[in-house]
């Protein structure tokens, strides 16, 4: 008796060990790796991003501060240098203008007087090399200086044309007749239309070279003058020789001191400060030595980056170890829960097995008792009386034995059916059609007993995905009960309705005897039956099990003498779980 019932428990899981199919989806390692990754990424981003932003802002501020510290003195030196050079040129230009006003043309054209003036100017101003007076047609009419340039014609020289046009002029540095670098300051006095003369002085570049060199304040730095075409007007340390093109980028014109960055040798970035010298074609340029912000800044930058790197590593280490620890704890807890769940499920199945065994014992023992007593009686009759009992009597007793044996067979058959219906096979089903097919089995009985069957189905009933064979059994069981419950001439109503977007409800209502209230809670228990002798008590229990398997629900409403209504709710899609 216990053997067949053992077969009834489907796919009994082991009581321990969580690595089963259900467990795998919930507690798979991959799932926890995903959780871990998400936790580590989110926490790291939240922790690291503000740190990186703060470090970057600090980095930029320090960089700016360091650059300002380096450029401020350059700007100051260049501005001062510009002032000095402007003063130098202004002084000499003013001296020449004074001479032009103070002395008459005759005085100036007298070579001995001019030589005296040159001597005085050399003594009081410095930088003057020679003096000359050039008439408007271009001939130098008098000259004082070391080179004997009297009678030279300057008509085609650019400086001469410029001074006639502007009244005063400072030339670029050029080699001139004497093949040594110098420049000219010239002023013009106009006596009438196309009549006048020019006083020109040659200025020693050595003098402004010295002035420019004094501005070099940093070792390795460079200071020089360029003209408007970028030609060096003074020697430079590392940007070319005098009168060569300076190795600097074009410097945009400005009235004040400007800063610009430029590429130097060996990939260094230099800072250049420059300012135009007013009233002359010169621009004073100062180039910083070596790389931008060489001192102090690299060390600070290294410390900043080191701080950032160490902090990020620390944060990552703490986040990864913390998250790993927590996810592992969560996984362990889930494993324990899954194990407990399986144990509970197993316990439930064992309890069901117990109930099933008791039910089977009771159901089988009744017909077996009858077989025992009928066979025993036949044996009694054969042994205890002198004559054989009448033939009809013996046949009667044996019929009883056979009937009871049939009852036993029926029970075992049902039990096998119970065991068989544990697997789910799904297909798309027209529930309306299925209900009508099932009703086909009962058509004859309905006609014979005058039972009216009414359908309440919408015009376009929804299809569902489910197991056809099992649904047939479900509805057959419920309809069988309904047929058994109604009197001849009774009514059975079958309805179909979409209840939620994803569910379909089928109800089967009869106006039969009804179910007593105290029985209502037991009608789905195995071997519970009110049809003494006629039923096995398995029908509704099987029905209940199938509907659970299919992911649906079954409920019952009943009132004695009024009728009973079973409501089966089924999911439209196949959400049935096969464990």
């Amino acid at each position: 008796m216990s053997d067949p019932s053992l077969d009834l428990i489907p796919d009994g899981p082991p009581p321990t060990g969580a690595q089963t199919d259900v467990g795998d989806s919930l507690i798979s390692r991959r799932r926890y790796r995903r959780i871990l990754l998400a936790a580590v990424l989110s926490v790291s981003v939240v922790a690291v991003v503000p740190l990186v932003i703060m470090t970057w802002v600090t980095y930029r501020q320090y960089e700016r501060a360091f650059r300002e510290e380096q450029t401020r003195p350059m700007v100051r030196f260049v501005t001062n240098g510009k002032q000095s050079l402007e003063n130098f040129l202004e002084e000499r230009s003013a001296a020449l203008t004074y001479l032009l006003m103070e002395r008459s043309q005759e005085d100036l054209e007298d070579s001995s007087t001019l030589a005296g003036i040159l001597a005085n100017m050399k003594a009081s101003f410095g930088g003057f090399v020679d003096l000359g007076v050039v008439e408007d047609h271009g001939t130098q009419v008098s000259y004082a200086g070391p080179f004997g340039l009297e009678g030279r014609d300057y008509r085609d020289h650019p400086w001469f044309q410029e001074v006639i046009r502007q009244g005063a002029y400072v030339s670029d540095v050029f080699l001139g007749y004497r093949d040594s670098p110098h420049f000219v300051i010239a002023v013009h006095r106009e006596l009438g239309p196309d009549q006048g003369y020019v006083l020109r002085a040659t200025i020693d570049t050595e003098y402004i070279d010295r002035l420019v060199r004094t501005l070099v304040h940093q070792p390795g730095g460079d200071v020089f003058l360029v003209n408007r075409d970028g030609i060096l007007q003074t020697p430079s340390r590392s940007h070319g020789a005098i009168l060569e093109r300076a190795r600097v980028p074009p410097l945009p014109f400005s009235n004040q001191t400007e800063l610009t960055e430029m590429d130097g040798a060996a990939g260094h970035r230099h800072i250049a400060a420059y300012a135009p010298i007013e009233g002359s074609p010169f621009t004073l340029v100062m180039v910083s030595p070596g790389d931008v912000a060489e001192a102090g800044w690299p060390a600070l930058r290294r410390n900043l980056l080191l701080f950032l790197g160490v902090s990020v590593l620390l944060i990552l280490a703490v986040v990864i170890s913390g998250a790993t620890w927590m996810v592992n704890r969560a996984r362990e807890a889930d494993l324990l829960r899954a194990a407990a769940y399986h144990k509970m499920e197993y316990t439930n199945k064992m309890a069901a097995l117990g109930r099933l065994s008791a039910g089977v014992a009771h159901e089988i023992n009744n017909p077996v008792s009858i077989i025992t007593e009928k066979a025993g009686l036949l044996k009694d009759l054969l042994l205890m009386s002198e004559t054989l009992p009448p033939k009809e009597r013996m046949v009667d007793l044996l019929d009883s034995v056979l009937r009871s044996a049939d009852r036993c067979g029926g029970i075992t058959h049902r039990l096998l059916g119970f065991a068989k219906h544990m697997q789910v096979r799904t297909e798309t089903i027209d529930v309306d059609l299925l209900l009508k097919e099932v009703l086909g089995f009962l058509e004859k009985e309905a006609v014979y007993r005058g039972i009216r069957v009414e359908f309440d189905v919408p015009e376009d009933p929804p299809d569902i995905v489910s197991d056809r064979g099992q649904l047939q059994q479900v509805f057959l069981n419920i309809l069988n009960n309904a047929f058994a419950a109604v009197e001849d001439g009774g009514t059975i109503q079958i309805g179909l309705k979409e209840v939620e977007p994803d569910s379909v409800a089928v109800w089967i209502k009869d106006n039969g005897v009804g179910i007593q209230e105290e029985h209502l809670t037991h009608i789905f228990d195995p071997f519970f039956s009110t049809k003494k002798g006629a039923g096995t008590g398995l029908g509704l229990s099987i029905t209940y099990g199938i509907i659970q398997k299919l992911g649906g629900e079954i409920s019952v409403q009943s009132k004695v003498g009024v009728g009973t209504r079973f409501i089966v709710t089924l999911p439209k899609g196949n959400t049935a779980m096969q464990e």
Partner: protein
Amino acid sequence: MEALRVLIVDDEDELVSALKERLALRGFEADGVTTGEEALEFLRSRPCDVMLLDVKMPGLGGLEVIRRVKGDHPDLEVILLTGHGSVKSVEEGMALGAFDYLMKPVKIDNLVRILMAAGSKPGRKAPEAEGI
């Protein structure tokens, strides 16, 4: 000697009739009914020595029958018949004053022995068994 009067109460009609006849063949005065209500009704008109009582019956169950008959018929001994191994209902029945219990299917020799034991309790005449 007067035969021991036995009342068989079981909802399986065929079981009752067969047992009744077999006990009669063994010298008992056996009667049978198929519900608890019928048993109570029977006892009101005909006194009995031993009642063979099925525990699980529709309507009035075996345990309820013991409760009711023990008051009116203190001399009546009750032997419980049970179809399944529900220890709980057997224990309850014994506590209510049942003499003994038997599991279905019953061996006739066991049944006769227990019936005799129940009938030979002090103050009761020993029954006379025949043909065994």
